[in-house]
Structure formats: C-alpha cells, structure tokens
C-alpha cells in the first residue's frame, strides 16, 4: 500500500480517482489485484481516499499518510476541467496557479492575482472592441454598461459555475479577505430573479470564481499569446446572449428624436395614427407610426395615444442607435501586412456623449 502512496506523478495523468479501503476484508480485493497494477503500469496518479473509519489501525495509517501528502497536487477534477475547456498550458503548474486564490495558504505556488490583473484588462479590451465595432452608433455610456456586464462578477461567476469551476478553485473561506460590500450586494429584487442562474452568485465563492476566470484568461495571454486569450473570450463570454435593447433608458423619447433628426439634418418627426380599435372601450389599441417626411422611422402600440407615441418614438431611437453590424473585422485580428492592407475601418461614431 505504501508503494502506491509514492506513485510518481507523470505529465499525462488520467482523470481517474480510485478509492480503496486501507484494510479491506478481502486481502486480494479485485481492485487491488487487478485495477491498481494496470494503473501503475500506465504510471497513473492514484489518489487515495479511504472510506472506512471504524478501524483504529486505519486512523494511525491515515495520520501518517497526511504527512506524506504532497502540496500542489493537480486533482483529477482539474485535469478534467483543462480537457473540457481545451486549455493546454506548457506547464500544468500554470493552471494550478491560475485557480489558486490568495486565501489558499497551503501551497508553494503564488496566488492568481497577477494573472487576474492581466486577464481582467484583456477581457475588457476584447469585449469593448467587439461591441465598439458591432454597434457603431451606440452611446458611450451604454457601451460602458455592456462591458461592465460582461466583465462583471455576475456574468463571470455564473460562467464559472457553468463550467464546473466551483470544484476546481483552491480557496479558503475567511472573512477578513472579503470586504463587507459582498453582503450588501447579495440582495436581489424579486422581479430580476429570473435573470439569475442561481441566486448565490454574489457571495464569496462568486467573487473567487470571477477572479479565477479572469486569471485563466491572463494565464492564457501570458502562456499562449493574445490570440489564444481572445479566442477564449470570444468562445465563452461573447457567445453569451444579451438583449442590449433592454438597457435603453429614455425618459423623453419625443424630444430626443427631434434632436436627433435636427442633428442629422432630416425632416422633423411627425406621429401619424396607423390603426386603432376600441377607442371608446375599456381596452383600446392604437398603433402610431413616427415619420420623417414620408419615411417611416418606427411604429409603436399602446392603449392610449400618448403611450403609443412614446413607444413609437422610443423604437425609432432604438432603430437608430442600436443598429447592429453583422460582418466586421476586429482590429486586433490584423496580424499580417496583407490584412493591414485590406482592412477597412468603420466610420467613427458621431453620437455625442450624454
């Protein structure tokens, strides 16, 4: 049994964890006789976890085992995680460092803070660049909000729990390292509850997971280069679906639309009633279209004329500012001279800051 404890760790490990009892009733149990030699022959790393606690001799053995236990051992869960996310670093210790939070002291590795700083900036860059190109006419404050959503603790911790990061991060729950603002943010209104995957994203493990995601991106940037980090951000974070138009918050759309038409040098907007039903009943419907000299900008429905006009003007503003570009080249994708020659930049946004 001792020889098995000292099994050498090789580079390519299996994701197998074998539990066997220290003092099993059957001396030559099937697992000891058949499986372990197979594993040893392939120089697998076998984790020992005993499950029977009744034997007193076992307890002595267990205490001895703990002293021989190595620090910074890469668990099968971490190997499975690396394979799942298709991360292959040049040194497995890099990944181990990236998932080590600073609160975890039982290690010889430095924590993931440095990776996190780099990764956070890299994520911000790639997400900002993407939305900058995708929505060329968007106000800057909405662009900022979008980037904060994607790079925020909510998204990153939800993403972390979706990829199984909870079982891979190395951290310790200690109150002094986490600020009291964590508890303040944990309240969530009921109307927004459906937007959460689970309600427990703003607690400590959420913070740790968000930092770990940023650290992994940072580690990828350092180890494999910026293209690799960009691919990670694009594959996992930018593929997430966010309804941008939900963010639009406008109090006086009619006024804003008039100002916009004036700025663009077009005819002032006029609302025209397109369809209506049940005007004198309890539930009328009006459909109003907003026109700029025979060109229909947008239409909106409502149970009163004012409401319909509000919706119509708001939709007109949305159609303009939130216009989406489908095909574009990201500036960070220009890495050869040929691409540099053929790159056509988009028109710079002329929406004034609000």
């Amino acid at each position, binding site marked *: 049994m001792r020889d098995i404890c000292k099994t050498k760790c090789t580079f390519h490990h299996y994701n197998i964890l074998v539990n066997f009892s220290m003092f099993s009733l059957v001396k030559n149990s099937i697992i000891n006789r058949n499986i372990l030699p197979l594993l040893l022959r392939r120089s697998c790393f076998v984790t020992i976890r005993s499950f029977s606690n009744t034997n007193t001799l076992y307890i002595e053995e267990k205490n001895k085992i703990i002293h021989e236990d190595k620090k910074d051992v890469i668990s099968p869960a971490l190997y499975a995680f690396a394979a799942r996310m298709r991360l292959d670093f040049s040194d497995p210790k890099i990944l181990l460092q990236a998932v080590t939070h600073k609160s975890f002291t039982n290690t010889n590795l430095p924590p993931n803070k440095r990776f996190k700083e780099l990764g956070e900036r890299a994520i911000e860059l790639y997400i900002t660049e993407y939305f900058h190109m995708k929505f060329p006419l968007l106000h800057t404050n909405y662009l900022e909000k979008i980037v904060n959503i994607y790079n925020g603790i909510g998204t990153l911790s939800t993403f972390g729990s979706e990829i*199984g990061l909870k079982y891979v991060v190395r951290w310790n729950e200690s109150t002094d390292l986490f600020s009291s603002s964590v508890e303040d943010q944990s309240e969530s209104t009921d109307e927004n509850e459906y937007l959460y995957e689970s309600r427990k994203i703003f607690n400590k493990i959420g913070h740790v997971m968000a930092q770990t995601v940023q650290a992994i991106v940072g580690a990828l940037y350092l180890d494999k280069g910026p293209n690799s980090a960009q691919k990670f951000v694009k594959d996992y974070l930018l593929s997430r679906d966010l309804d941008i138009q939900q963010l639009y918050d406008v109090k006086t759309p009619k006024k804003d639309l008039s100002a916009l038409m004036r700025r663009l040098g077009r005819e002032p907007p006029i609302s025209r009633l397109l369809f209506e039903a049940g005007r004198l009943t309890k539930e009328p419907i009006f459909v109003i279209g907003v026109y700029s000299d025979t060109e229909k900008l947008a239409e909106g429905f409502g149970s009163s004329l004012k409401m319909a006009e509000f919706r119509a003007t708001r939709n007109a503003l949305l159609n303009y500012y939130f216009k989406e570009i489908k095909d574009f080249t990201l500036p960070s994708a220009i890495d050869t001279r040929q691409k540099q020659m053929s790159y056509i930049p988009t028109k710079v946004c002329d929406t004034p800051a609000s």
Partner: protein
Amino acid sequence: MTLTKTLIPKAKNGVGAFVFSCRKIEFNYCERSGSSYGMIKYLQNHLIPFAKINPQIEIVVTPRPSKHPIVTGTYMNLKQKQICVKNKNPDEIAEIVQLIRDNTGVSTKKRFKKPVISTTKSIRGIWSPFHTRPHLI
C-alpha cells in the same frame, strides 16, 4: 429603471465553444456480491479506454460493500442521474455509461414536455390583426 446591476447574459452552449455537460461519473460496486460481477469486469477491462477517450470527465471508483453496483453521473446544472447496473454484462454497462456520458442533467420528463428550448419565440413573428391584408371583395 436600468437593470445593469442584475442583468446577466444567457449562456448559449455550442455557439462559441461547447462545454461538455457531464462533469463526473462515479462507479460504486461491491467486491464480494454477485450482482457486481459484471461491473467488476467492466472496471477491469473497459473503464480505462473510456477514461482515455473522455479526458473531460472526472471518474471516481469507490467500493461500496454489500450494495448493488450503481453508476452516477453529475452534470453542470448540479443535477445527478443514477442507474443501478446489478446483474448486467460489461457490454450492457458500457452502453449505460455511454448514456450517462451523453446526457445533460435536464430531467427526462421536462425534456419530453418541452423538446425545443430557444431564445427566439417565433421565426416569422407573432400574428397581428393590424398587419394583415384587409379582405377585398
């Protein structure tokens, strides 16, 4: 009211990269009972090739004395699926493990009632009486 503090983009698995849904498979067997015989043969012969092909799944093997052998899959939505493989051949167990591997944690009942899950409600839009052509004689 803006919802920036609480808005979280929805995950779309497969659009960018695919995150494999089965996180961990746990095998429990008994060393002495007869119902575990097939399971033991599976563990000896078929398990390691399976683990090689699926490096993204964490595999745990634990003896569980005096109980029937079971295979438990843990998924990314924190749900688990358990199948008892008592008195089964290694080939049948291999099929069952493949089933557990291919599964997501979504319950079969839910999946049966709502086979299509989509963020877009309809392709051609919801019908509106105001946008149909009026009937002409």
